């Protein structure tokens, strides 16, 4: 029997790592590169922004991400309309085609509904998804933990549905495990390999493990690592947590019981009367 964690398949691409990591909010590009390496991730998300936002030294993030080692997943973060998201996705594809990255036709679709909560706009998300699919994109769809919306996105051709554990960057973990379970059960019914990735809200390793133990195929996170006091240690912790959760989910945990069950034999304790 093998206890290896099998590859994660999303659309046409496969990865050994089930952790997808964002590249935002690191103190330096050097720290980001080290954290990505420590996390063991093979997919990194990037954002598309107006030129001149490179760091003070005028360096570009691409100098710190080896495109041979990582598949870049451009996002549409910050877009509050389907139209902006579609335009941003097309710009992202053009950028990735320039560096011949396998993630070129990929996009992490986010259409946000509100600046304070950064919760997704379901109507705009579905609209943008349809347009991007028609334009040949492989769309990984950020959404809330609403099972009906998740199903709508799958039906509209999302390559993966990525429900939020909790609001982006909040570190609250998986707030509604019951909803995530329903999403997993319904979207995977008769289609076991359909990828569900918990995206957003993860604060620490146990949050990742919870998501994976629920049966998620992977976890996408950024702030949990980048915002930690020691991002390298947290990156390693997240890597281990994904593997732990994946294996535990399939190992068949013991049932919860109200009372204790001794692990050591009850017979043969010294001083006992026969």
């Amino acid at each position: 029997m093998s206890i290896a964690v099998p590859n994660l398949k999303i659309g046409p691409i496969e990865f050994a790592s089930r952790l997808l990591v964002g590249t935002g909010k690191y103190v330096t590009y050097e720290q980001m590169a080290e954290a990505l390496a420590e996390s063991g991730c093979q997919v990194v998300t990037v954002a598309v922004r107006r030129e001149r936002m490179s760091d003070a030294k005028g360096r570009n993030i691409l100098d710190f991400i080896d495109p041979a080692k990582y598949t870049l997943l451009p996002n549409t973060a910050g877009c509050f309309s389907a139209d902006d998201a579609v335009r941003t996705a097309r710009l992202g594809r053009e950028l990735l085609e320039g560096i011949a990255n396998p993630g070129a036709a990929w996009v992490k679709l986010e259409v946000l509904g509100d600046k304070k909560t950064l919760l997704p706009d379901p109507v705009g998300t579905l609209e943008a998804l349809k347009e991007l699919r028609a334009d040949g994109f492989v769309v990984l769809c950020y959404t809330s933990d609403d099972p009906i919306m998740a199903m709508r996105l799958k039906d509209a051709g999302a390559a993966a549905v990525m429900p939020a554990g909790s609001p982006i960057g909040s570190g609250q973990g998986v707030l509604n495990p019951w909803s995530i379970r329903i999403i997993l059960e319904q979207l995977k019914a008769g289609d076991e390999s359909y990828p569900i990735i918990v995206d957003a809200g993860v604060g620490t390793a146990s949050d990742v493990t919870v998501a994976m133990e629920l049966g998620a195929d992977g976890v996408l996170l950024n702030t949990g690592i980048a915002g930690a006091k020691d991002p390298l240690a947290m990156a390693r912790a997240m890597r281990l947590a994904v593997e732990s959760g994946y294996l535990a989910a399939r190992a068949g945990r013991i049932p919860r019981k109200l009372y204790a069950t001794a692990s050591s034999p009850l017979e043969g304790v010294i001083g006992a009367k026969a």
Partner: protein
Amino acid sequence: MRIMVNGEWTEQPEGLTMAALLERLDLEPLRVAVERNRRLVRRAEFAQTLLTADDQLEIVTLVGGG
């Protein structure tokens, strides 16, 4: 002629191509993507794309994000 670049009006010489503008701005064409009046301009078309007055450009690159 005036050309809007990333939300700001700039003064540019007549007859400028997209490729020439990027060179003036000291931008590596492989590291940017460009929209002209809300439509993507493919990199292969930079050299032939002639800019006209009041064009509005978005010139973007990749940055860190989640």
